[in-house]
């Protein structure tokens, strides 16, 4: 029996979803981080992409973080001449983070994390039953 492999697959899923949650936390924490000098760019939203990777020693498809990229969508602007980051016309660029999108993403990450955890529990149950035979 090789339940260790199955547990490793689920563990890779857990760590991938953990990395995703970290990116979401960064985005939410910086949801109002504007630039510091006039006309400078604010925080740019980060994105995360997963890919499946074949692990030769485990003979299984694990999941890993493919890349952490940057959302290239335009920054919303707000008229706020008193802000230190305001440009000559008095407009401030705000981060392109949408809290609702991040919250939805967080829910999805949580759901996937739960799913991987359930599989881990199920595998552990199977392993325990096998050990009970002894």
């Amino acid at each position: 029996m090789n339940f260790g492999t199955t547990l490793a697959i689920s563990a890779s899923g857990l760590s991938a979803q953990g990395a995703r949650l970290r990116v979401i936390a960064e985005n939410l924490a910086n949801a109002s981080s504007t630039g510091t000098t006039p006309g400078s760019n604010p925080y740019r939203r980060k994105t995360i992409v997963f890919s499946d990777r074949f692990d030769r020693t485990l003979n299984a498809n694990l999941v890993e973080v493919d890349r952490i990229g940057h959302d290239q969508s335009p920054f919303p602007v707000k008229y706020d001449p008193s802000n230190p980051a305001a440009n000559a016309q008095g407009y401030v660029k705000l981060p392109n983070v949408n809290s609702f999108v991040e919250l939805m993403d967080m829910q999805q990450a949580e759901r996937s994390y739960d799913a991987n955890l359930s599989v881990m529990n199920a595998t552990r149950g199977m392993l325990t039953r096998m050990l009970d035979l002894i």
Partner: protein
Amino acid sequence: MTDDLLGLAAKRVAYLDQSQRLYAQNIANLDTPGFTPKAAIPFSALLNGEGTLPLAVTHTDDQTSSPPGGTIAVPARIAARAPDGNAVSLNQQLAEIARTQISQQYAVNIYKSYLGMFHTALGNTP
């Protein structure tokens, strides 16, 4: 080839171990763009000679050696594909996991009961 009951139960458990691995892979790749899930062939198909179970590993010193062969995976039937190309259905996969668990419990219990019969026949209390 006909197996005895113990052999059959052991094969069934090994098959369910492999299936569980497939479903764990599918669920781990729940958010991987373009991922297509795999499904296990039915156990009856395995008994009829389709697909193979991997050979048992007797030593793990050589980590670079290619893993023991054997596969019971076939591309899963796809109900719908997400816009990012991912085709894993969480409900379907969790249902498969639940079914695998119940079947494994069943197989292990049969194994245990059969061993119990041997114990009784030999006059030992299990």
